[in-house]
Structure formats: C-alpha cells, structure tokens
C-alpha cells in the first residue's frame, strides 16, 4: 500500500499551516472503556449470507460477502434526496483519521476510530451504548495513520483487529473482552487496521507491514476461541515467478532481468522479508467456498535491487479455499513493483461478460494504476481492464536517485478505498487520487522492522492535485461518467437501489449523485474530511445514511471526530 512518502494535498496548493504551538497531547485513550447494555440480537450466518438483500441492517464492511457496496433499500431516491438532513451526530473521543465503515445490527451501530476504539450506538438516536477503549501496547509500527476500518459481528460477538496486532472478540451487548489473540509481533512491523471478515465461524484477517519488511499473510481464526485455524503466506517460498516483463495492461516495466538473475544466484529467494501486506477484506464466494483478496507491495517499496524475481504474490489478486486456506489461483498486476502502485482496494464479486460476451462469475478490483481490472472468478485470469480513470504519464520509468516523475503518484488511482457496484447498470464506482510525484530510489539493508522504503515518493510542489468519482462499465471497460473533485479522493463510496451513490471529500463535502449520470443531487459540509465509506440502514420505517467525518492521516485532510447520520423527514 502507500507509504509515508506520499503527497499531501497541501504540498501542491500550499495551504493548511498546522495549527497552534505547544499543543496538548492528541486526544486518545483519555477515556476508559465504558461497559453498557446494547439490546441486540445475535447475528446468524444465514443473516450474513443474505446481507445483500437486507435493507434493515448493514452487516458487513462492504455490505455483503460479495463486497458490492450496493444497498438494496430505495426510500431515499433521486427525487427526494434533496430533503436529506442530519438525524444525529455522535462525537467520538478520538480526533484523528476516521476510516470506519459503520456496521448496523438490529438498531445498534458499531463504529471504530483511530487507535482501535469501538463504540456501540443507538442507530436511531446516536446515543452511546458502550465504548471499548483498547489498551494499546507501547509498540506500534504503522505507515499510514493509526486507522481502524471497522468490525464485524457474528453471534453475540464483535470482532476487532488492533493497531498493536491483536485480534479481539468483544461481547456485542456490553463491550467486554471475550478473548484476545496475538496476531503477529508489532516490533517486526506488523499492525492491523482492517476490519475482520467473519464467515462460517472463521475470522479472516490480513496484515499491514509491507513498508517494514514483514512476510505478509491471510489467516483464519476460530470465532469461538481465537485459535488459529490456518495461515496463508502471501509470499511463497518460491517468489520468483515467470520473470514477467510487462504489466497487466501490456506495458514494459523496464526490468533488468539478467541483473535480477545474477542477484538471485547470489542471495537466493528473498521471500522472508518481502512484504506483501493485505490491507482490506476478502470477498467470499459462498457457492464455491473461495475467498478473493489482493496483496500489497513488496519490501522495500522502491528499491528492487535486493529482491530479484516477480516477488509473488505481491501486487496480485489471490484466491484461496475458505476451509483450508489452500491456494487456488492468482493474477499478478505488476511484477517486481518499484513504484508502490500495488493492489489495495477490496475485491468485488459480480457476474461479468467474458471475452465472448457470455456472463460468468467475475471478480473485479480497482488498482492504484487507475484501471478497474475484471477477472474470471474460476482461474483469476484477466478478462479486461478499464480505460484509465486518472492521468498516466511516463509509465513505467524506473525510480532514480534524483527522482523520476511518473503518474499516477504512489497513492493511485484508487487507494484502499472500497468501490461500489450497481449490477443492474453493470457499473463500478471508484474514487481516485491524482497526485504528481517524483519516485526516488535509495538502497539500504533490512532494518529490523523499521520503515524500509528504499527511497521516497515526493509530491511535486506546484503541480496541481485533484480527484474524481468515476463510473465504469465493467463489461465494456468504458467510463460512463466522471465527476472531477478539487482534491484527491480517499475513503469509499456506496451505491443504492435508489439510483444514488454517496461519497465524501477531504474538504468536508459529503454528497449524493445520480448513479446513472453523475449529476450531483445533494450535499452537506461536515467540517472535517469525509474520508470513510458510507453505510445505509432502516430503522422505524426510515432509511438512514451514515458516514464518518474525521479526516485522513495519509493525505493529511482536516481531522475531526464525527459520525453523522442523515435521514428524510
């Protein structure tokens, strides 16, 4: 995923002097956990399986196991969305980057904040029911902000992964800890920011750490006990691959294969510290019992000199068997990446047209490259890639000591932000960044769990940055509509059966658009960056849309601590 060398919007426009001198310590962990009593029914596996048809709840981070982020309710539609107004605002105790996907179960909402706090709220009123303030260990190592993207509920338990690389089960009614499991050693660069995916009594979790020389993984833990059931190393012991010289779109990546082969003969397979984090949730194909996820960048990000080979399965789509964690198939977008233009945004399962126009089960992923990639779910093979959603220039120039200019910048394209789809319209909706950057390379040995970039990505002062919302027809690869935004976009998007998409911007704007045309129909100013994926639900016969407005660390958007729910009169 991205690194620290990113480029904040402020670099280009010269705004945003950091406020204040001698500022008090940031607001965090000043609150102790507050146990409560949330009157919530246990969530069954059957409910989770049918989440795509459930407009009452919002049960999974990306709406359902296929991760379509398509909400089936339509009370809020194109005609009446102009009347949308604030129902309530809840202020958390943590004023720092907010990336949570609110989960709604039986009238109870669960949201998380930076530093791994969890709140249970009354989804109708915003009243706090309980608060879990994680007692963080002293050692946390993370590249892109102390974020947390949410929880999932199964039965009467809430599952949470924390910044200090622990997996927890909480009592969904009270917030009490039921069990805790150590996932990996944070001192070696491991951390957790993603929401777990819980299915068939398995808690699935990946790991951050691709900027620290970890060896990435996806794991399944027993939902009842926290015991590890299986582990899949995202970096196999033979990570060399096929010496691919072209990326998924057929462009030459300018690899020096002979130099890499010489290095391989000298140092052997570099798999042990090759990175390969998994930042976002897998999609689950319940019919075939498979999961699909994408793997992030190799370590170190920009310096490929000491990691010969394709660096499998970095920058790849990977499918596993859900029960065993055994490899099924993969597809690598960029072999031997030296730009951190990796694969981060979560996969989505939809039926797609194959090359002959026949409808087949597909899996799609939006890349940092600015393409949406469409695959055959059976063997992971690439069917097509979309028109580019952002400017591409000088690809794939190799990073230099002085800095080589290339677009997209290292954040993308599409960062970790989940896309939404509307299968009826055959459209995928993605939010994009445009940040011109210099790619610089430096070489240094493995630093024992420290930041290991192998160089830096730097925003180019004076070059304008921007963003966009793009609707792509995944059966043709053509862009149907695009809305330009003044700032790079990071957070997420939601499509609804009401013919709308909802998404937010770093300047605090949260808006609804006609999902067929991109026409803006409603907007609200939240006062802090809206850089989190929205959710929607029904309670008391009324539809609500909810989103976090807390800004973003990675692109340095104005921080806040608000969870805002909207509804109609």
């Amino acid at each position, binding site marked *: 995923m991205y690194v*620290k060398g990113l480029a904040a919007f402020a670099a280009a426009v010269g705004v*945003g*002097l950091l406020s*204040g001198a001698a500022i008090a310590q940031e607001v965090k962990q000043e609150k102790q956990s507050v146990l409560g009593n949330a009157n919530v029914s246990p969530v069954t596996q059957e409910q989770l399986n049918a989440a795509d048809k459930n407009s009452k709840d919002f049960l999974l981070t990306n709406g359902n196991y296929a991760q379509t982020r398509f909400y089936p309710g339509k009370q809020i539609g194109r005609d009446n969305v102009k009347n949308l107004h604030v129902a309530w605002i809840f202020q958390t105790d943590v004023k720092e980057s907010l990336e949570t996907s609110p989960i709604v179960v039986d009238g109870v909402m669960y949201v998380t904040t930076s530093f791994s706090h969890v709140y249970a709220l009354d989804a109708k009123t915003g009243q706090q029911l309980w608060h879990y303030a994680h007692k963080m260990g*002293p050692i946390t*190592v993370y590249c892109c902000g102390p974020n947390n993207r949410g929880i999932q509920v199964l039965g009467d338990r809430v599952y949470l992964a924390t910044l200090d690389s622990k997996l927890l089960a909480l009592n969904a009614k009270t917030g009490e800890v039921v069990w805790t499991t150590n996932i990996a050693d944070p001192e070696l660069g491991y951390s957790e920011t993603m929401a777990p995916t819980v299915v068939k009594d398995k808690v699935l979790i990946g790991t951050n750490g691709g900027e620290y020389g970890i060896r990435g993984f996806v794991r399944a833990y027993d939902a009842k006990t926290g015991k590890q059931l299986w582990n899949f190393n995202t970096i196999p012991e033979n990570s060399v691959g096929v010496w691919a010289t072209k990326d998924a779109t057929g462009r030459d990546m300018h690899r020096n294969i002979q130099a890499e082969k010489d290095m391989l003969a000298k140092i052997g397979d570099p798999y042990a510290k090759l990175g390969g984090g998994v930042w976002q949730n897998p999609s689950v194909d319940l019919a075939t019992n498979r999961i699909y996820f994408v793997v992030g960048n190799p370590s170190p990000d920009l310096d490929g000199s000491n990691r010969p080979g394709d660096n499998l399965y970095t920058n790849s789509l990977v499918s596993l068997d859900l029960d065993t964690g055994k490899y099924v198939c993969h597809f690598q977008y960029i072999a031997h990446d030296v730009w951190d233009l990796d694969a981060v945004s979560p996969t989505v399962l939809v039926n797609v047209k194959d090359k002959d126009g026949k409808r087949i089960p597909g899996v799609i992923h939006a890349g940092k490259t600015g393409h949406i990639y469409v695959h055959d779910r059976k063997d992971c093979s690439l069917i097509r890639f979309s028109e580019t959603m952002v400017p591409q220039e000088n690809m794939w120039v190799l990073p230099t000591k002085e800095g080589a200019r290339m677009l997209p910048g290292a954040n993308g394209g599409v960062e970790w932000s989940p896309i939404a789809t509307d299968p009826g319209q055959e459209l995928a909706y993605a939010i994009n960044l445009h940040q011109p950057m210099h790619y610089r390379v430096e070489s240094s040995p493995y*630093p024992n769990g420290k*930041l290991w970039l192998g160089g830096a*990505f730097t925003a180019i002062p004076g070059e304008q940055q921007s963003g966009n919302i793009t609707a792509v027809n995944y059966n043709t690869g053509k862009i149907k509509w695009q809305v330009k935004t003044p700032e790079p976009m990071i957070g997420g998007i939601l499509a609804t059966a009401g013919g709308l998409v909802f998404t937010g911007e770093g300047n605090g704007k949260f808006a609804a658009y006609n999902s067929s045309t991109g026409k803006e129909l409603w907007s609200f100013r939240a006062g802090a960056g809206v850089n989190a994926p929205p959710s929607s639900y029904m309670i008391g016969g009324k539809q609500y849309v909810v989103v976090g407005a807390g800004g973003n*660390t990675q692109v340095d958007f104005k921080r806040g601590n608000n969870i805002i729910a909207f509804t109609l009169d």
Partner: protein
Amino acid sequence: MFGKLMMCGAALFLIASQARAETIAEKVAVCTGCHGEDGKPVDKTIPTIWGQQAGYLYIQLRDFKRGDRKSEIMQPIATQFERDDMLAIAEYFSQKPWPDLGQPRAPKDVAAKAVSASASVGCPACHLDRFQGDGTVPRLAGMGRDYLAKTIADFRTRARGNNPGMSDLMLATSPDDLAALVEYLAGL
C-alpha cells in the same frame, strides 16, 4: 557548555552503580546527568525524553544495545538493560511532562515552507498532524532545535543508522526545506 558536557560525560562513571540499581528511580538516575533533572537536556544536542513516546524510547534503548544506533555514552548504558527494564524506563519517562524549552515559533514564511516540505514527503503519516508522534514514532513538536538539526544531518549521512527509511526521506528533502522544518518543529 563545556561544563555541562563534562557533567553529562560523568554519567559514564555512574554506569558501575547502574548495574546494581533495582528500582526504576535508581535505574534512571544516570539519565538526569544529560537529559536533565527537570526534563530539560543539559546540552542542546541532547534529546528531550520527558513526555516522549514510550515505544520510541524503548526502540532507541534496544537499538543502542544492539549497536544499531551509535553513541559512546548511550551504548554502555543501554547494554546493561534487559527488555523489561527498557520498557519500564520508557514508560517512566513517557509519563513525565514534556518540558517547554522556550524556543520561539517559526516566522510565517518559514512555517509555510516547512509545512509544504512536510506534506511533500508525508511526515504527518507517521508523526501525525501535530507532530506529537505515537507508539514507536517520536514526538518532534518542541524538540530541541540543535538536536533536530543534528539528527536530520546524521540521517542524511546515515551516521544515524537505525532508521534507513528516515534517511531516505531526509535525502529526498532539500537542505533549505529541512532547515525550515527544524525551526518550525522546535517552535511548536
């Protein structure tokens, strides 16, 4: 200055008694010689450790012991500590109040230059938006100006060798921009 450095150097002579120290207060007695009894370092090239992030302090002690970070004074001291000692010492100092070194705020033009440079390489992604740090990432806001300047210079030459990622980022930033950052951070 010379006198203060002599006092600081005298810390080395306390190391023998350090080995017998049992309580935290005894273990950290040696630290005050350089880092100050009131949290204000006795010399401007010595870092503030009162109120610093515990994870960062632990990692530095660990790295001094391993030899990943070099210091004629700190390495012999850290060598005597086991991991639990280091964690306890780190926690002890992290709970102390951050001292006000009385450094002036940077002028507006310098601050603007610093913020632009910081955004370009992404300092807030780890040090957070108010440079308070977190976990293993240090607080920079209000740190001694000379220490900041020396550390950045040492990162650029890799004389400070225990964080090559920071070296990469400092090498990607111009000396002018780094000078502005030093002034800006010291004055926060």
